[in-house]
């Protein structure tokens, strides 16, 4: 008998995480709800002036997306760590970094993609122009996977700590900042009719960098945390 092939293991792990998320959907909806609520509360708290909202809208949406992602990060490994499944992943004959890609992909599908889907609605709420809305979606599509990929390294490092939440934010937030800067200013630029291709290229570069480095770093961090 040959070992189960890597693509098989990858797809079974991905499907397992999606099934788990579906069965825990009340828990999984939290970050999305947070994203919508924070964004919706800003006009109430500051002012409903359309011109002002249009100016601060991109920043609000991106900050909310970033915090929502941070809020959901712990779910990547927490339950696997608690019930011992993480040990089984670590001891599988498959390369751990590839399995990590499946974990992060599942996490993005569960927490990142929904942000993308509701973002146009929030764009309307904050009076963004059509051009800005398009850019917003593009930046979210490029940026949220980066957040999941970077976040996974942080969670892998802190999963063994009982109260790792605070240290996780401190570890991960500084690395989130470039994404926030490029993404929010791209949306603001496109609202002002300025070119955004440079920003988008930088975000895409960050994504490529994160995809190539994060899985190996996450795998190595997990090995340290578990030993």
């Amino acid at each position, binding site marked *: *008998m040959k070992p189960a092939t890597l693509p098989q293991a990858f797809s079974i792990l991905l499907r*397992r995480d999606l099934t788990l998320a579906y069965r825990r959907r009340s828990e999984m909806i939290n970050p999305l709800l947070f994203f919508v609520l924070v964004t919706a509360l800003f006009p109430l708290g500051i002012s409903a002036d359309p011109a002002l909202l249009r100016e601060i809208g991109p920043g609000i949406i991106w900050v909310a997306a970033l915090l929502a992602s941070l809020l959901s990060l712990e779910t990547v490994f927490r339950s696997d760590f608690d019930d*011992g*499944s993480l040990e089984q992943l670590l*001891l599988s004959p*498959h390369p751990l970094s590839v399995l990590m890609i499946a974990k992060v992909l599942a996490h993005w599908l569960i927490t990142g993609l929904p942000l993308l889907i509701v973002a146009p609605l929030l764009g309307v709420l904050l009076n963004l122009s059509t051009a800005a809305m398009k850019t917003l979606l593009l930046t979210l599509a490029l940026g949220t996977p980066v957040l999941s990929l970077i976040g996974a390294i942080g969670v892998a490092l802190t999963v063994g700590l009982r109260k790792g939440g605070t240290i996780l934010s401190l570890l991960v937030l500084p690395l989130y900042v470039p994404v926030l800067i490029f993404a929010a200013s791209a949306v603001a630029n496109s609202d002002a009719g300025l070119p955004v291709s440079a920003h988008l290229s930088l975000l895409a570069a960050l994504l490529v960098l994160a995809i190539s480095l994060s899985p190996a770093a996450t795998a190595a961090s997990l090995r340290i945390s578990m*030993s």
Partner: protein
Amino acid sequence: MTHYDQTDTLEARDLTCIRDDRSLFSELSFTLKSGQVLLVEGRNGSGKTSLLRILCGIRQPDEGHIHWNGGDIYRLATGFNAVTAWVGHKDGIKLELTARENLVFARSLGTPSGLDIAEALDAMELGGFDDVSAINLSAGQKRRLALARLLVTRSPLWILDEPFTSLDTHGISLIESMINKHLVDGGMLAVTSHHTVTLDSNDITRINLSA
């Protein structure tokens, strides 16, 4: 059922484990061959679990080496993972998944033994629980589901940490006969247990970490 390679050897040389500035054990050496059992004994906190975690490669020893067929297990890495199966103190099953889903996942993380999932569940007397969420299983049933992993995958080296926890006498004899069969097939076993383990094999190496 095909037999395992009779020439497989696990050799530990001068293992030392230090935890929180306390030496749990030092210069521990032993060899485990096909069909043999390593029974790790000792009081609570004497380092039994740490030793098993070192043997399966989750943890590195502070000193010493472990060799599988002559190769360092940290160099073999995933190659060594392919020959080991670990059931730790935690069951490693997902409560939200059904018994079948749990085993499908476990099988994808190892070398499939060719045994059907339904057959494995039957062997663990969990037949009929295929589509029951693990959350609805009793503690003993969960433990048997965790141990059913050993049946759906094929690994010559089983490393079991307190496998009999929460099992009743019938469950214990079920696992013991499963282990006996594994040893007859030429497998090897490293185990800790508070229960007296009754095995057919006379080839048992005992290590007492409290001594």
